[in-house]
């Protein structure tokens, strides 16, 4: 590829996306330029909008990190969606029963419950993979459906306040909102869980580079047969990777349940897991890339919400698909051979 086309590609992609945006907005009967300005103002232009973007990006970055952990090992964890949902239920159920505990116990315990449940759920797929060779894409998809069925069942039979939600978590189990820092953020969903989004990808990256097990997980992803022949415990590394992927997915629930809603209700995490896969792939394996991708997708989602009044959601979804494709195709790619 010549230098010119390499630099021209992002520009061309941006132009195409903008054109598509204009067409979509125009088709919806709105003035394109004004819609763009409104959308951007609503997401990035105000402190509240920014807070919302941060909130969404928090979940997306963590979910993306979860995806990447498994991806490094050559596993495609499609089950993040279900893992997050179960974790959110666990956070809600356990969080509601911690009224007796101070915050320094309640938050870690409720969060730990979320992480543990999601890790166990993912470990099941890992075990099926290493024990029976069942492909994780199939098993995790099935697990998502299973989670969809289990959640209302659990809420209806003892775990819920009503059939659709849990009781409120204890005040001590809540993660403080960022609005305690600035009034401008009042009402926004962003909480100190955003710290998790900053730390988690970075910690995982360190683990994958420095720790013996973490490095072996990456090597297994690159060449499982050669690893086995060299005495690397391949099955155990695959299991670790998928379990950890689930555990990180579970962390996502902290922002949503403990940092924002204060309870779990059916459907509140819908879509985060799947969007997290996109973020994980866009992030290209670096913590910074992951955060950038999470902010991009978060901003797109928020823009979509703002425009929702005038432009149908389907139109903005098409646009987001286009943006993600554009980013994915214009990025630098190592050419081998």
């Amino acid at each position, binding site marked *: 590829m010549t230098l010119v086309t390499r630099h021209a590609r992002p520009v061309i992609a941006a132009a195409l996306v903008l054109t598509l945006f204009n067409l979509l907005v125009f088709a919806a009967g709105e003035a394109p330029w004004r819609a763009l300005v409104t959308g951007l103002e609503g997401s990035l232009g105000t402190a509240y909008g920014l807070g919302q973007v941060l909130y969404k990006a928090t979940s997306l970055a963590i979910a993306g990190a979860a995806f990447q952990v498994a991806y490094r090992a050559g596993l495609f964890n499609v089950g993040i969606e279900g893992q997050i949902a179960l974790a959110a239920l666990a956070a809600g159920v356990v969080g509601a029963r911690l009224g007796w505990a101070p915050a320094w116990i309640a938050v870690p315990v409720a969060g730990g419950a979320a992480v543990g449940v999601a890790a166990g759920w993912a470990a099941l797929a890992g075990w099926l993979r290493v024990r029976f060779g069942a492909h994780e894409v199939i098993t995790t998809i099935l697990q998502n459906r299973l989670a969809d069925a289990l959640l209302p069942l659990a809420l209806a039979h003892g775990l819920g306040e009503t059939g659709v939600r849990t009781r409120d978590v204890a005040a001590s189990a809540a993660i403080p909102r960022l609005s305690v820092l600035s009034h401008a953020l009042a009402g926004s969903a962003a909480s100190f869980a955003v710290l998790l989004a900053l730390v988690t990808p970075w910690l995982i990256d360190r683990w994958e580079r420095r720790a*013996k097990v973490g*490095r*072996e997980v990456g*090597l297994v992803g*690159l*060449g499982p*047969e*050669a*690893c*086995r*022949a*060299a*005495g*690397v*415990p391949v099955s155990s590394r695959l299991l670790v990777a998928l379990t950890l992927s689930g555990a990180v997915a579970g962390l996502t629930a902290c922002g949503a349940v403990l940092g924002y809603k204060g309870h779990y209700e059916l459907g509140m995490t819908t879509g985060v897991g799947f969007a997290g896969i996109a973020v994980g792939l866009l992030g290209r394996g670096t913590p910074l890339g992951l955060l950038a991708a999470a902010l991009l997708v978060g901003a797109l989602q928020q823009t979509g919400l703002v425009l929702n009044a005038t432009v149908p959601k389907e139109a903005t979804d098409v646009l987001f698909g286009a943006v993600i494709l554009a980013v994915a195709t214009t990025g630098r790619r190592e050419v*081998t*051979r």
Partner: protein
Amino acid sequence: MRIEARGLTKRYGDVVALDDVSAQLTEGRITALLGENGAGKSTLLRLLAGLSAPTSGELVLDGVARARVSPAEARRLGIGVVHQHFSLVPSFDGLKNLMLGDEPVGPLGVLRPGALLARAERVMRDVGLEVDLGLPAEALSVGERQRLEILRVLVRGATTLLFDEPTATQTRAEAARLYAVMRRLADDGATVAVVTHHLDEVSAHADEVVVLRRGARVFAGEARGLTTDELARLALGAAPPPVSRPPPPVDAPVVLALDALGAGRLVDVSLEVRRGEIVGVAGVDGNGQDELVELIAGLAAPARGRLSLDGAPLDGLDVAARRSRGLGVVHGDRHALGIVAGASVHDNLVLGELGGDEAARARQRLVASGASPARLDVPISALSGGNQQKVVLARALGRPLRALVVAHPTRGVDAAAAAALRARLAEVALAGCAVLLVSADLAELRALSHRLVVLCRGRVTAALPPDVDEAELGRAMLGGAAA
């Protein structure tokens, strides 16, 4: 078709893989391409086939000069490459692998394997290649896979054939048959280039020679009349010293013992290797060698029989546990079992033993390996094939060993480095290690081993002294195969 390279240069970062190389390949002639590991042979073939673009220089194809040729164009011009690394789909049978990327379709896009099968069979008959097209590629021996790769290029009607170390995986008799194939193709007007590290093949089979050294062309001319020593001086600087077998151990205890071992192709294999002894396993590739090595390594479980190291049974122990008892293994299939291609040289040198004084170990092994460029941080895929092999061996040899099982240790390694590696194996044995050496290179087996056993159809069919006459050894290898 006549191909000419004019002043080709290829750089990878600060590595100059090819330095202003000019050469030509002529119709009807077999041109041998020589040079030590990393000299740039594979790179030159890739440039000729349009698979990578030169940094500078041009190709002249059929009299037309071009700075760059696309792979599709090269294929249209009838240029076909048989790569050093195989590109077969393991689970596909031979026929499907032949079809892949060039599917024979009838009207309405229906796959028509029949015509292709007929063509493949005709080509096999015409040129004298033999491959079982009904078996999945993973069930074929390395030698058979090599022949399948060659068949794939021929079936597509290539008339300019670039072979990258096709004989590295073949016994000498098989290699001679491959050269007979090439000669028939050349006589029919094909242009043939072949990379090899076996210098004796050059004077026996090639018409012309091109020698590369550190990326530069140092010789081009007629092959006839050049002796192996002269070729060695051209390619390597000096003829490699002959290997000397370590003195045979006296009254040494048995270290590695196989007792009526059986699994898959293997039937009742019993073997003992003593302290300081080198036992050579001869046999036509695909007669159970790979299975034997995998059983001893702990990658596969035996269906019958027992295996012990220093008198203690190895059954039930995994690869890592066997290694910690002092067992070292080098598998024959470097690409599947030897290296993690996407990982760095460093990680490949300490694969399976991360942690501890890892950095020091990696550095030490890198130096011992003699690989070039001697860098730890580059991906191993940036090393030439022979240099990758040196890394694999350095990992196995870089620890104290009670027993060592090596399959094809010098496959793809240049003659000078091969001599150094063989000397290293002799040294390891002299230090008290029991060595089981599996090789397709009879000269290597005879030079190093204290005893030879012949593996045929999964059985040990003969035990012979190393100075057995080559014809008799060959008969023993085939005799069982015919039985």
